[in-house]
């Protein structure tokens, strides 16, 4: 049941969320980019701004209208809050010859994410599988995840770097949200076609007292989202797992290695990358320590270090690891691709390396199945 929320009524939405104890996190313009931060009012939304993205390029540009969500994605993703860049696992105090662990007891912060794209919902669901899956569900992640309200936004235009349609994650928001909105900025005024996806979302809409959307408004919304699908890059995903496994020595890896700086930007901006490291931090007396978990990147030289050297010492091996993990091994590990087609890695790579281009080049130059990883042949060990 679609309803209509007028732009001026966003003040009430913010108030309703804050009354329920939610900190509203959403997009805002800062330092020449649209980033995610705490919002106190709808005035802080990036009205009238859009992003221009290409390989190795990101610029903000003024729009002709005052749309609040007329951009694609910025350098931040929601993992900034759900799987933070650093957080403390525990503290410990020295006691005689031993020590006492002081586990974290912080209360969870309730957050409402405003403006979650379809690709981002897919990314959240992918990280749910990684961090809540099988053997050891991450209790800190679960706590954060349980206290999040997801207000999604359908994309009405795509950036040139987007390829969510190819990855099957967008631009249409399908599920996993509490509320979903599509922004209309036509002659009828600035308004949103809204639908609830959960009980919490339904209650919010009730409180907003939104009138039902007309069939015309719904159709307008659908048309805009469909148009976004046609503006994107593409990647061919059939057989991509076998293709990557079967081409671990393809010359293209040497080619990309010459361009890749191993800076790790792609892993920082990627909404599904989850690798972390653990650091022991002591105070000056050495009697009090804290164990911190921090983002790490498979591109760093020491990522695969074991007593004496790194297993992946060449940039070639590290780029290969990142790409084959994202598009192939992830499927074996978690049942889906690790990529949602948001295009951030393309825009934020200083060398302008484009994952869709690299995959296409590998596919074009594919040799036979001789080196297929699933093949049962004898090596020369």
């Amino acid at each position, binding site marked *: 049941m679609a309803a209509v929320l007028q732009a001026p009524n966003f003040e009430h939405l913010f108030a309703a969320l804050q009354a329920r104890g939610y900190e509203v996190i959403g997009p805002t313009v800062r330092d020449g980019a649209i980033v995610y931060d705490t919002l106190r009012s709808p005035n802080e939304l990036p009205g009238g701004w859009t992003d221009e993205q290409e390989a190795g390029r990101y610029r903000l540009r003024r729009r002709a209208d005052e749309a609040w969500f007329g951009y694609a994605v910025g350098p931040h993703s929601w993992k900034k809050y759900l799987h933070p860049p650093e957080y403390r696992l525990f503290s410990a105090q020295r006691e005689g010859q031993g020590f006492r662990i002081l586990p974290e007891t912080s209360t969870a912060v309730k957050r409402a994410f405003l403006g979650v794209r379809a690709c981002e919902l897919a990314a959240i669901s992918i990280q749910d599988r990684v961090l809540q899956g099988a053997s050891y569900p991450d209790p800190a992640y679960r706590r954060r995840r349980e206290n999040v309200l997801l207000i999604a936004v359908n994309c009405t235009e795509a950036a040139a770097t987007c390829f969510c349609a190819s990855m099957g994650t967008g631009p249409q928001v399908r599920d996993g949200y509490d509320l979903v909105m599509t922004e209309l900025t036509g002659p009828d005024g600035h308004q949103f076609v809204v639908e609830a996806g959960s009980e919490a979302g339904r209650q919010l809409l009730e409180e907003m007292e939104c009138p039902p959307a007309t069939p015309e408004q719904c159709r307008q919304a659908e048309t805009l989202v469909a148009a976004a699908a046609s503006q994107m890059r593409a990647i061919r995903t059939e057989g991509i797992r076998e293709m990557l496994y079967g081409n671990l020595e393809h010359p293209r890896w040497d080619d990309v290695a010459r361009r890749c700086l191993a800076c790790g930007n792609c892993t920082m901006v990627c909404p599904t990358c989850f690798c972390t490291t653990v650091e022991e931090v002591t105070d000056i007396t050495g009697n009090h320590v804290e164990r911190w978990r921090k983002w790490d990147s498979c591109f760093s030289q020491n990522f695969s270090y*074991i007593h*004496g*050297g790194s297993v992946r*010492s060449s940039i070639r091996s590290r780029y290969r690891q990142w790409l084959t993990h994202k598009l192939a091994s992830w499927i074996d590990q978690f049942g889906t691709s690790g990529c949602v087609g948001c295009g951030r890695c393309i825009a934020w790579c200083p060398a302008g390396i484009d994952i869709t281009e690299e995959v296409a080049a590998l596919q074009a130059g594919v040799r036979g199945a001789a080196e297929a990883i699933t093949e049962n042949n004898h090596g020369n060990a």
Partner: protein
Amino acid sequence: METLERILGEHPFFAGLEPEYIRLLAGCASNVRFEAGTYIFCESQQADAFYLIRQGQVALEIFAPKRRPIIIETLGEGDILGWSWLVPPHYWRFHARAVELTRAFALDGVCLRAKCEQNHDLGYELLKRFASIIERRLDATRLQLLDVYAQGSARVTR
């Protein structure tokens, strides 16, 4: 002599050799025995024989100036000791010491070299077999060189 022939013929190293070649080899062979601690041969000596070890253990040693001598390999029952007899300039590249009482067949290299020159088929058969020994020693030496147990070698995976 007959026992010698039988033992040579049954040894895996000589498997597939024509009986007449086995007889020929037996003709160049003799029983030898080395007390524990004695040197079977020394580095840079003329290499005029090879040995089929029947019992005991032999250590191959290298001495380098200003360094402690080390054992680089040990051979035991059933192993073939020595290929330098076959390859010019025919001198031993290391010492061979009997670690314990060792019994072996010694095969006369000078005699065999002459026979191989006359009979190239025999020469080829012997070379094939020794090439296979050299290959296995090279493989093992390569693995030894990689020093896989040393610190800092963990990243070496090939």
